[in-house]
């Protein structure tokens, strides 16, 4: 093994908050050699990003780093800012999660790459431009010379991340720190970006420190894995050791919580959808258009969409971002007008319903939104948020309403005393439980769940999915479960509908879709999901790449 690029010894990061030092990462020890990938995994708040940022002292001024971080034998802890700047971007380059916000929106991507180059090398503008176009070619951006002059918002999510990688590679850094590099991307795009990173690593022989919460990504990329919890290193070993012989209970728990696509141990879906009866939700040839705004032309988000959901049935709606799945969800309960077609909820046609008609319909429907932090009113105690639909529907008030609120809190397994708390006093998982309690307040026949778990950590997500399933068993509501995560849909749903570019690609029983998908798009979507098992993922990856080549 060659000399490691990065050696981290007894590295601790603490934050000074209100007069106390709070440790965020404690006694970290690891090293990475050229061509190697070390993954740091853990849930939010475990200190993994803090560790990555702390290496090059990129944290806020209230952070304190101790221990030793050596890059190519040079100490970074306590180094002068001018020394640190020389290493940042040149020896250690970063790739961040959301390339839309991580690239400056007012400069072209070419400008930003040239800026990096000219900061570290004595280069003329033309020379730097040539090198930048060379880098954009390296990361497979279509039309590199043209993309040089594009602004971040003119590129797609995947292209932006490629631009970000091109910028990171500008100075041939020995180490790439990739902080959740694919979390904001669709699975198919994620697979492409991971392929790109793997290819570049081999070509340039650089080391990668991969920070992620996604075990599938880890299995796809990592040689070595370090598991973190509450700032501590829980377990550290090779990918094979961690995935196949985890020794620490937390590692086992983390791996156990990861939903596995098509895994053999699967919950038996108890609720039996009564197919014979009339559908709760009936969408017939629904077309939805976002009207023209100024010079922005009208956009057809959903085209001739057909879907029925029967009582007691959970239907998963999957697709990449921009495929129109959220639009379908909103229109299904009358939050968006439709241009053509027919929508029926519990036998009532709402295609041309007035606001007043919809008011009555909404007592039969509930919706859970993606981000629980922003979909609960921050100024209302959660008890009021839950009780509001009941009160507005005129079903109960006073003491009776209090009783109902307590029942709902019991149902979502939160203490009754929480009713007087405000949303910011709860964790993400607890907030999402409130979201579901509110949606279920009127015991709806139809629940729309729009990516309810995508903002949650895996272990929290697993508990939330359990709860949703128990509630569905008990209350027998029909559910349209919108998600980009096939593994989650796999756990929960009876049937799956796949969307692409506003059209329904395929709909069918869960196993039929996941195991014997007919449509090539569905097949590609499923193939792109990384599985949390390095050996299996390697086979899947090769199969997918072979399929693409064909």
């Amino acid at each position, binding site marked *: 093994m060659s000399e490691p690029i990065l050696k981290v010894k007894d590295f601790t990061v603490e934050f000074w908050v209100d007069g106390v030092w709070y440790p965020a990462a404690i006694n970290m020890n690891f090293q990475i050699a050229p061509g190697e990938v070390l993954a740091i995994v853990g849930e939010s708040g475990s200190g993994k990003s803090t560790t990555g940022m702390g290496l090059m002292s990129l944290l806020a001024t209230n952070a304190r780093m101790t221990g030793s971080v050596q890059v190519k034998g040079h100490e970074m802890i306590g180094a002068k800012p001018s020394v640190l700047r020389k290493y940042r971007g040149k020896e250690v380059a970063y790739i961040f999660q959301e390339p839309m916000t991580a690239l400056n929106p007012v400069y072209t991507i070419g400008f930003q790459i040239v*800026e990096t180059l000219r900061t570290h090398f004595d280069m003329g503008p033309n020379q730097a431009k040539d090198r930048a176009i060379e880098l954009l070619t390296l990361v497979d951006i279509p039309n590199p010379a043209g993309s040089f002059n594009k602004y971040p918002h003119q590129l797609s999510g995947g292209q932006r991340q490629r631009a*970000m990688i091109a910028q990171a590679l500008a100075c041939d850094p020995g180490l790439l720190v990739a902080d959740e590099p694919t979390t904001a991307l669709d699975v198919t795009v994620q697979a492409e970006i991971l392929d790109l990173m793997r290819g570049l690593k081999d070509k340039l022989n650089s080391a990668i420190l991969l920070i992620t919460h996604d075990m599938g990504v880890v299995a796809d990329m990592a040689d070595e894995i370090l598991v973190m919890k509450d700032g501590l290193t829980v377990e550290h070993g090779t990918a094979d050791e961690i995935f196949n012989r985890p020794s620490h209970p937390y590692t086992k728990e983390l791996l156990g919580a990861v939903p596995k696509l098509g895994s053999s141990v699967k919950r038996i879906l108890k609720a039996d959808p009564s197919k014979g009866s009339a559908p709760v939700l009936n969408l017939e040839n629904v077309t939805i258009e976002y009207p023209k705004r100024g010079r922005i032309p009208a956009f057809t988000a959903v085209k001739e969409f057909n879907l029925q959901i029967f009582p007691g049935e959970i239907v998963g709606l999957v697709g990449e971002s921009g495929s129109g799945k959220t639009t379908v969800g909103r229109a299904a309960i009358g939050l968006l007008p439709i241009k053509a077609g027919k929508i029926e909820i519990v036998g009532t046609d709402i295609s041309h319903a007035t606001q007043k008609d919809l008011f009555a319909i909404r007592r039969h429907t509930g919706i859970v939104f993606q981000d629980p932090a922003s979909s609960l009113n921050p100024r209302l105690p959660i008890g009021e948020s839950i009780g509001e639909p009941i009160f507005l529907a005129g079903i109960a008030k006073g003491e009776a309403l209090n009783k109902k609120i307590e029942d709902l809190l019991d149902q979502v397994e939160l203490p009754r005393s929480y009713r007087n708390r405000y949303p910011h006093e709860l964790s993400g998982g607890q907030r999402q439980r409130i979201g579901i309690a509110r949606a279920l307040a009127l015991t709806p026949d139809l629940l729309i769940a729009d990516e309810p778990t995508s903002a949650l950590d895996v272990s929290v997500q697993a508990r939330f999915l359990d709860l949703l399933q128990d509630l569905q068993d008990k209350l027998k509501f029909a559910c349209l479960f919108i998600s980009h995560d096939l593994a989650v849909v796999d756990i929960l749903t009876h049937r799956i509908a796949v969307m692409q570019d506003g059209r329904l690609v395929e709909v069918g029983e869960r196993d039929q879709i996941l195991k014997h998908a007919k449509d090539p798009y569905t097949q590609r979507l499923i193939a792109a999901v990384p599985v949390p098992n390095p050996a299996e993922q390697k086979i899947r990856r090769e199969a997918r790449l072979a399929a693409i080549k064909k």
Partner: protein
Amino acid sequence: MLSYLVRRIVGGITVLAFVSIFVFGLFFVIPADPARLACGKSCTPELMAEIRHGLELDQPLQVQYFRFVKGIFFGRTYLPGTEAALHCTAPCLGYSYQTDELVTNLLKDRVPATLSIAIGASILWVLIGLSSGILSALRRGTWIDKFSQGFALAGASLQIYFVGLVLQFIFVDKLAWFHAPGYVSPFEDPKEWALEMILPWLTLGFLLSAIYARLTRAGMIEVMSEDYIRTARAKGLSNRTIKFKHVLRAALTPIVTVFGLDLGGLLGGAVITEYVFNIPGLGKLATEAVTNVDLPIIVGTVLLAAVFIVVANILVDLLYMVLDPKVRLS
């Protein structure tokens, strides 16, 4: 880009057309009879009729408006064919009977003073506002920040007539550093012009810089927590490059909007400032015209102020296109 500019200009002209119709409507709705007001004390019915004819008040309102608009573009002649015939070249904004002068000439006399105040003061307030805002943001929480915030708060809460008089007392009466405010053409005597203008500049600059200091500080602090600033640091850029090329650039956009509105408004007449420092500008002309119900002057000043604001807004939009690529490209 060009079509955008054309659309903005067409929009601006539409606004001006509406403003002109609206102010012109004053003639019709106002209870005072303009002919009576112009007639003066020794008025006879014959004289009234003559003035009414001279002012063309005997014509239907739409004809009056049409002639007014035509006068702006092509000039017009009052009382043609008589010995009192008065030619008014384009842009003709009307004729004030009370002062016996063409409105355009009155405005021409007054614009330089207002322009001097507005441009000098705006340079000063942008300089003071931006630099104290930048300093505050970079040294957040230190005494520099606190001092500059206090300074801004004082500026935001004080009034021109108070600060103006205090400064005049100190710098003119006691120290005699500057001359008593007034207006001399900079082409005749630039030194005197500056010495007389410096007090209004300082006063307005101090008072108006407050909002700029606060906007700059808040904007920069917000931008500093953006992800792309973290990226810039991770690239190894120097602090100076990050602060000026990345942070300030992004924080500038809202400031440009406010600046356009402030400058446009001030060009239409810095009423209180002109009064306090006794400077013969547009604001003073307008208030005097209002007191005397001299309608042609009111119409003229309002239109000119509207032109300034519309032009300032178009300039802001153009600047926005330079600053924000999303506006430029969508």
